[in-house]
């Protein structure tokens, strides 16, 4: 825990005081919209005896855990070589290939699931294999980011030193590189396991009816079967298990970079040895193809109705038919995403502010709890909790329009507050001191120093929140109601109905949603010229 932003001087007392007061906002938000719904769910589902004896529920949880374990192993096996290619070498097109690996992470998991359904051979469209492969595809970006960052900061000098001491490439990896990467690999693995364990969107379209995961079963019990008790019991299991996974894997995530101050330069490819040059070039080409292919498949699938290639699904989607109001869905999705982004960024900034500036440990701890609790409570459980908690006066909020953006804000909050806190910590404290010695009041210090330095990270965090909202499917599918259907809800509804044209329309909506997400990222990337994702 490096303390760049830790309050040490008297000048920051106003910040610390403000932090204490501002804490009330995130506490109320997370309390009302996460803790209370979760507790309501827990109370209804806290019937462990039933969960343990019910073979169906138990096998669902078991399957969810082992598919997540296999997905994690596969993701690491693919992700570590990809990280090596992309972070240890400099070559033409590196940035583009690297951006491509982020694409699936930026896209809604539902859309990625559909893309896989579109490109997999017909025997493999649903089941464990496509689900696991899709998970790897979705999460390679996590490994590239987490392990890649560590790898990039690993000075090449260690490798060179080992070589002069007689270590060949394999021995160097085992004795020098691997010990340095181990903690980051564990951290990435923990994150990936978490994502795969609470998979929903991809699982809805890929796992198939005979292989349900916990989240899809919660949805099925709550919405299709109307069995709230079973849904709640699974939700309890989900909360407990995610909590355990988080507790086990979180310490690894704190491992920082190397102590060494010399930055590592990637190897320029034309200076590398021939086998390495061939390997990296080939690897980069494969990565590019693999990451583009599903998107192409998705687009092509939207043009296929039955066995014919046609634009009819697109024409029908933009016309006014009873099955789909695409323009309305786009409008609803964008409106909800905007509202969710505003809520998330306000609450997330406050959480970050308290974490960074509060003087008391307990205040910082409470702020961290506000960040962690929404991680433990998965999106589907948030939706279920909203259903169960907000249905009686004085909080009979059933069908309120703002419930959906609030649910999305809960889902996006951890990501957003973490992004903002990381940037807040990097602001050197003496900048603020300098401003105050030049006569700036505490408020002025905040507006002239913090606010302007945080403009870009907050912009990035807003995009992140909007992206999460656009692609959010877990909470949405429990809170859906007639009237203002979002894009993900439309996909879910269309997929559940028979008929070639409706199926093709689901892919049309997925293409539109993917385009929306990608253009949002591209737009913000241009505006901030920063590294978003």
């Amino acid at each position, binding site marked *: 825990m490096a303390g760049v932003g830790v309050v040490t001087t008297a000048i920051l007392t106003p910040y610390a005081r403000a932090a204490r007061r501002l804490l009330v906002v995130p506490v109320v938000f997370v309390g009302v919209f996460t803790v209370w719904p979760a507790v309501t769910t827990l109370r209804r589902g806290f019937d462990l005896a039933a969960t343990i004896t019910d073979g169906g529920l138990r096998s669902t949880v078991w399957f969810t855990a082992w598919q997540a374990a296999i997905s994690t192993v596969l993701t690491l096996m693919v992700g570590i070589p990809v990280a090596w290619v992309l972070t240890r070498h400099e070559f033409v097109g590196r940035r583009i290939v690297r951006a491509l690996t982020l694409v699936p992470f930026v896209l809604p998991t539902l859309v990625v699931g559909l893309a896989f359904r579109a490109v997999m051979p017909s025997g493999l469209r649903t089941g464990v294999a496509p689900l696991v492969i899709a998970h790897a595809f979705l999460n390679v970006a996590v490994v590239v980011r987490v392990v890649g960052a560590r790898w990039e900061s690993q*000075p090449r*000098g*260690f490798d*060179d*030193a*080992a*070589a*002069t*001491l*007689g*270590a*060949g490439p394999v*021995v*160097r990896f085992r*004795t*020098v590189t691997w*010990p*340095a990467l181990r903690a980051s690999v564990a951290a990435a693995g923990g994150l990936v396991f978490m994502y795969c364990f609470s998979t929903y969107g991809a699982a809805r379209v890929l796992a198939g009816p005979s292989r349900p995961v916990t989240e899809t079963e919660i949805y099925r019990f709550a919405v299709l079967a109307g069995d709230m008790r079973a849904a709640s019991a699974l939700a309890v299991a989900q909360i407990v298990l995610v909590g355990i996974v988080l507790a086990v894997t979180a310490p690894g995530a704190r491992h920082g970079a*190397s*102590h*060494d*101050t*010399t930055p590592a330069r990637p190897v*320029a490819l*034309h*200076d590398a*040895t021939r086998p390495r040059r061939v390997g990296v070039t080939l690897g980069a080409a494969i990565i590019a193809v693999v990451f583009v292919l599903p998107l192409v498949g998705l687009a092509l699938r939207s043009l296929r109705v039955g066995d014919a290639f046609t634009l009819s699904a697109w024409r029908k989607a933009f016309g006014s038919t009873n099955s789909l109001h695409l323009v309305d869905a786009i409008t609803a999705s964008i409106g909800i995403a905007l509202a969710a982004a505003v809520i998330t960024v306000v609450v997330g900034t406050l959480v970050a502010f308290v974490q960074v500036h509060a003087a008391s440990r307990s205040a910082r701890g409470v702020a961290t709890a506000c960040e962690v609790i929404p991680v433990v409570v998965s999106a589907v459980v948030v939706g279920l909790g909203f259903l169960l908690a907000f249905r009686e006066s004085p909080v009979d909020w059933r069908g309120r329009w703002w419930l959906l953006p609030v649910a999305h804000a809960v889902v996006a909050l951890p990501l957003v507050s973490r992004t903002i806190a990381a940037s807040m910590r990097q602001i050197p404290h003496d900048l603020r001191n300098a401003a105050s010695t030049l006569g700036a009041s505490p408020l002025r210090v905040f507006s002239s120093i913090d606010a302007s330095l945080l403009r870009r990270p907050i912009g990035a965090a807003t995009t992140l929140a909007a992206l999460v909202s656009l692609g959010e499917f877990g909470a949405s599918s429990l809170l859906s109601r007639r009237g203002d259907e979002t894009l993900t809800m439309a996909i879910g509804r269309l997929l559940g109905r028979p008929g070639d044209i409706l199926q093709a329309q689901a892919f049309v909506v997925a293409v539109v949603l993917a385009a929306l997400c990608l253009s949002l990222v591209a737009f913000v990337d241009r505006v901030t010229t920063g590294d978003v994702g």
Partner: protein
Amino acid sequence: MTTPGLEVDHVNVAFGDTSVLVNVSLRLERGEIVAVLGPSGSGKSTLLRAIAGLVEIGSGTVRVDGVDMRGVATHRRGVGFVFQNNQLFPHLDVAANVGYGLRIARVPSAQRNVRVTELLSLVGLPNHGARDVATLSGGEAARVALARSLATSPRVLLLDEPLSGLDHDLRYALADDLRRVIRAAGSTTLVVTHDPVEAERIADRVVRLVDLAAELSSDGQ
């Protein structure tokens, strides 16, 4: 004429379009300690890295004990290297750092321990084996790095600004130690530095990098 311990013959190194070493030649007798002087950015480190095989040579030859090193990977050259910033492995303690090369060479652990102990006392750090390398002072880290590169008794020892991180007084005291230790080990040694005083104290012979190239171009004609 005996076979030289190290021979650098018309070596050229370029990074992209930038030539870093042009026709550099240098000859060290076995066991000789030579210092190469040059300002920073003059290609001193590149010369050492080229000898160790960490940088690819455009043209020219490097011979160690008369053997052409072309196509020989760094880890098979038997060349010891003390890096700038030492590059001690942060996940290993002092003894494991010093014993690293011996472990790679599959030296049995009993023998290894003896050798590590011997080297640590040679560099003046007896009983420091269990220390975390992050806790070492600059001078101690430099000594450990030296011990590590000497452990496998390399035919050629290369030192890249070995004392650059240290303050003035410590530096010259350590320079004398360095010479004593290298002499005792008997390796053919090439040290590069920008400090003429340091060079004089460590080496038998001091040359300037610019002269290595100049001599050559006139030789070559």
